[in-house]
């Protein structure tokens, strides 16, 4: 018998060639037209460079050329999944500059629509996140419910996706007569479906294996990168502008800020970011129920609409809690009917910047999950 010599080596001793791989701009998992330049060591991601600008639609250029009300449709098209939420901080800023007090009814309708849109956004986020993991059924369930929300939006504003509904000083149109009943039936439906989704997707063993302990984002890194929304709340920081800097009438409602606890893995992994969105839908339902109860049905939503929108000279920064995080508008007025400049703080852009930091050292397949858990919209990244 000849002696066989056993070759012993450690993984780090193997010197493999690094591979550079392009993901996107046409790729089903990049959630739009994002290009990721990935450097791989075997199957392990060593570097990620996001290349953006494939959907740059020159929002700031349009804001220079248009009058104040004409800018609102372009704001819709920034984060097109949650258009109602987008309009709010912009409208609020001009109202503050001009010193307009909006009627009580308008505030309530704005809160209800913003929260409904938050539910719709999280439904898409969870559906596409499941789709990335290979779960197609929850996608169908969640999109079925989303259609009911869109029907209410359509009855009020006329649009299914992009609304142009929040106007300076009021709303474009009043809600329909059976508004309260419709919204309450939606809330009931959302809760029922969420029970199913919890069994189907969120607490599914296969899904948990895929997302737990993947893409861990520590709280200090999240703060350093300026993340907000479910991304920073998933890391265990209770940062929510609705509680921390209450705008509009959010101080009247009783709701909790959902944070990630690391239920199945480490705090700040993909599972936590997803579960925050999932539980936030329930909190939105609670806000909607309280708002429906307190909301007055009589009153004119257009009575405070100014005839000429000409804010006095000055500048203002307004922010609001978008479903994806803090969305802010810095508006500079020069006293005419056109803004001097509008700078927007895009939530997705800031949240995307943390991707290279948290995806290093994971498998390439996990990179897709990490990108899905950050929940970006390319319209807001590029603007």
């Amino acid at each position, binding site marked *: 018998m000849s002696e066989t010599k056993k070759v012993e080596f450690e993984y780090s001793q193997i010197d493999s060639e690094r591979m550079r791989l392009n993901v996107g701009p046409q790729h089903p998992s990049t959630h739009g037209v994002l290009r990721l330049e990935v450097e791989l060591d075997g199957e392990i991601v060593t570097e990620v460079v996001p290349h953006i600008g494939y959907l740059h639609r020159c929002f700031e250029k349009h804001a220079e050329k248009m009058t104040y009300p004409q800018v609102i449709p372009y704001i819709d*098209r920034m984060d097109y999944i949650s258009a109602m939420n987008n309009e709010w901080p912009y409208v609020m800023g001009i109202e503050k500059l001009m010193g307009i007090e909006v009627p009580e009814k308008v505030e309530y309708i704005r809160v209800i629509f913003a929260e409904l849109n938050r539910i719709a956004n999280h439904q*898409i986020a969870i559906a596409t996140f499941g789709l990335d993991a290979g779960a197609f059924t929850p996608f169908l369930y969640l999109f079925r419910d989303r259609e009911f929300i869109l029907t209410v939006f359509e009855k009020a504003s006329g649009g299914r996706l992009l609304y142009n509904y929040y106007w300076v000083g009021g709303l474009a149109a009043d809600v329909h007569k059976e508004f309260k009943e419709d919204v309450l039936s939606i809330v009931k439906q959302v809760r029922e479906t969420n029970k199913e989704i919890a069994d189907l997707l969120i607490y599914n063993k296969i899904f948990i294996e895929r997302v737990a302990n993947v893409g861990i984002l520590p709280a200090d890194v999240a703060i350093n990168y300026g993340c907000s929304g479910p991304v920073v709340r998933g890391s265990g920081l209770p940062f929510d502008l609705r509680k921390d800097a209450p705008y509009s009438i959010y101080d009247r409602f009783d709701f909790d800020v959902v944070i990630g606890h690391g239920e199945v893995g480490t705090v700040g992994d993909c599972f936590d970011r997803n579960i925050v969105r999932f539980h936030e839908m329930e909190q939105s339902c609670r806000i909607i129920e309280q708002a429906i109860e307190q909301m007055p049905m009589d009153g004119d939503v257009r009575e405070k609409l100014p005839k000429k929108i000409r804010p006095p000279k000055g500048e203002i920064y307004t922010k609001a809690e978008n479903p994806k995080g803090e969305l802010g508008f810095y508006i500079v007025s020069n006293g005419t009917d056109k803004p001097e400049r509008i700078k927007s703080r895009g939530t997705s852009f800031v949240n995307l910047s943390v991707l290279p930091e948290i995806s290093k050292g994971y498998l390439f397949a996990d990179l897709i999950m990490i990108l899905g858990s950050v929940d970006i919209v390319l319209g807001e990244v590029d603007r």
Partner: protein
Amino acid sequence: MGLLNKLDDPYYGGGIILGKVEDILNWGRSKSDWYLQFGLACCAIEFMAMNASHFDFMRFGCIPRTSPRQADFIIISGTVTFKMAERIKTLYEQMAEPKYVISMGSCANSGGPYWEHGYHVLKGVDRIIPVDVYVPGCPPRPEALEEGMIRLQEKINKQAIFNKRKRLAEEEQKELIISN
């Protein structure tokens, strides 16, 4: 369609279908169009809704393919910037013949809300690739896209398949006569 009614009658049709090969081929082609899974902007969300429960795109026989080599048609769903335009042209060129294009939404049709000040938005995707069906709207409702799909099926049904070289030569001669 009329074909299936014939199958029910045991005496008249007897399960035998008579028709032009072109018609039968086109019937099959138009009912199993596979599309390139490709979203650009806001319209892609409506396109996702089209794929989901309420509208169910797959009943047209449309299955999403992630590779342009396997796709029959492409839906340009959203704003085409100059940076993206060359990618779209590459994708279109990678598709196998016969191939079709549906331009969805105002942005892809003509530049939409960005036609005036959009300094690097392509004013209509038909400037780089030929478009078969235009679907208007910003964004179009899923029902509008369904209508667009039906129009595309009608167009495929009317297409001639055989004697392509002969037809092309005839067309060339006609063009020559017109130009002369």
